[in-house]
């Protein structure tokens, strides 16, 4: 109680002093508010600045080649002829292979983690899959180059070539020789890298399925497969697509892992086992060695194309995930 007595005996501040304190507080308050606000706007400025710098850097290439930059396969630094078709093709094909392989496996792991896994194992296995996402891409690259590519070259690719030798379309798709590195290897490495991202999203959206729905389905005598196929997946379809797009965004822009194992050849080949290049691999491989403004500018223009594609894909992914978030809250 002596504390209260102290309070009462201490002289109260004069009105001017009070006003001074309040004014100072108000000034600090406003300052902090504007500080946070400008930082938030900085994020917007950052995106705009990235776009602007890429447009400025790639302007020369677009000015020189026009729209044919997008449709030309030739990439010749000596004659200064540059076309983006081969890298764009490589980017799309490697990402497509990655998604074809990774999506079914990711959904499988997510179903395993949410429906099948014994409770005590759920967290450790989940964390282990997340660690896969934490491994830097250069590690996948060095592992892919020294371990995975030789493995494919020795055991898998000869088998593929032999199997599809007499099948019409497949024989071009899987035409030899088995280099080890190439489009297929890059696609498979990318699959391993996007796997944890797609799995994480799928697991999260699977957990939003109301237990009542699943119990009702099981109660009618449905099997696990039928519950997953007819309840869980339809309920979370938008979220799964969002997760897949998120993974696709990663795969399209992934650089180092691909650079190691793609072979960096600026040409479009019928066989997916042939070396190729992707946008990011071309930039990583050639940028520091690029001589002349037009060469540099062409590489930056490639970067702009990549940023544009991933921006669209990631934006669509976010919109879809927002939709399922709203659904979960409703």
């Amino acid at each position: 109680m002596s504390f209260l007595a102290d309070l009462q005996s201490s002289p109260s501040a004069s009105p001017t002093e009070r006003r001074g304190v309040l004014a100072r507080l108000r000034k600090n308050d406003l300052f902090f508010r504007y500080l946070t606000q400008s930082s938030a706007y900085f994020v917007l400025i950052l995106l705009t600045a990235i776009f602007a710098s890429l447009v400025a850097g790639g302007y020369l290439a677009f000015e020189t080649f026009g729209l044919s930059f997008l449709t030309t396969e030739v990439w010749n630094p000596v004659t200064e002829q540059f076309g983006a078709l081969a890298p764009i093709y490589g980017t799309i094909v490697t990402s497509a292979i990655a998604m074809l392989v990774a999506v079914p496996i990711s959904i499988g792991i997510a179903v395993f983690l949410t429906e099948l896994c014994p409770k005590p194992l759920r967290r450790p296995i989940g964390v282990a899959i997340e660690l896969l996402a934490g491994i830097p891409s250069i590690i996948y690259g060095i592992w892919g180059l020294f371990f995975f590519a030789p493995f494919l070259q020795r055991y898998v690719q000869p088998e593929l070539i032999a199997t599809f030798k007499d099948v019409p379309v497949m024989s071009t798709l899987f035409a030899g020789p088995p280099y080890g590195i190439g489009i297929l290897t890059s696609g498979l490495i990318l699959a391993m890298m996007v796997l944890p991202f797609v799995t994480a999203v799928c697991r999260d959206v699977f957990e939003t399925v109301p237990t009542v729905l699943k119990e009702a389905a099981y109660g009618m005598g449905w099997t696990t497969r039928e519950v997953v196929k007819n309840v869980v997946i339809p309920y979370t379809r938008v979220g799964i697509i969002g997760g897949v797009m998120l993974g696709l965004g990663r795969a399209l822009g992934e650089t180092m892992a691909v650079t190691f194992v793609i072979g960096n050849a600026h040409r479009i080949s019928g066989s997916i086992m042939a070396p190729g290049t992707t946008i990011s691999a071309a930039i990583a491989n050639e940028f520091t060695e690029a001589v002349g403004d037009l060469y540099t500018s062409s590489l930056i223009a490639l970067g702009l194309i990549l940023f544009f594609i991933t921006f669209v894909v990631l934006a669509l992914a976010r919109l879809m995930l927002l939709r399922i978030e709203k659904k979960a809250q409703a």
Partner: protein
Amino acid sequence: MALDRIRYQRRKVRSRITIGLCWLAAGLGLTILAFILATLLYKGLAGLGLNVFTEMTPPPGSDGGLLNAIAGSLIMTVIGVIVGTPIGILAGTYMAEYGRYNKVSSVIRFINDILLSAPSIVTGLFIYELLVRPMGHFSAIAGSAALATLVIPTVVRTTENMLLLVPNTLREASTSIGLPQSLMIRKVAYRAARAGMVTGVLLAIARISGETAPLLFTSLNNQFWSTNLNAPIASLPVVIFQYALSPYEDWQRLAWTGALLITAAVLTLSILACWFGSSRSPQ
């Protein structure tokens, strides 16, 4: 009756197959992780010695270590985090505290989420155009700036999420005793969300310490010891990239050792962040 039984059997078998495939998928994921870690340990430990931490990167054919690369990575990571973290925290604060229901905040959130997964090589090109070309040479400053650009979205995301978890009653209680909003945020909200925000920074460090693509043409590389921020500097990822693709066996061995070091650092940080986040977040 018999037909029903056959149909039921078939459904059960198909369900079993699906379940089996899901187990297989999980097994495959774990196998990949195990294979990568095993290869790293096997190849990386072979070259791991004290000289890795005490000697500079060697010319081909002679002994050496990774000291200048490790130092360069540390310098750029520290600067990147010091520059990026405050901006990220302040931006996240605005979105969670001042503009929680704003249109602008949701636009920023959307853009930030895109920046979070945008290709990091594009960041390298951006900094090249912004800093390297005007300055006329590659430098540690440019490398740090590229890393800071990658730190910001990660920190914004976690800061906002963690502040949103702070109960509103805390804010109301502190406002009711006359605390100005900025003080309330700094003294109450930050304190309640501290563990989560630290987790975000740890994750950001984990992310940038393995980044290679944005450093390739910002900080470039340097074979010698350098702490000059205005000059090219070596970094572990770039050295790994250069050495792994070289034809020299001792360079490749160093690349594996570097890869092991980076992975160990990144995974330790991730696990630390995971543990820190789950044991002390305000949930």
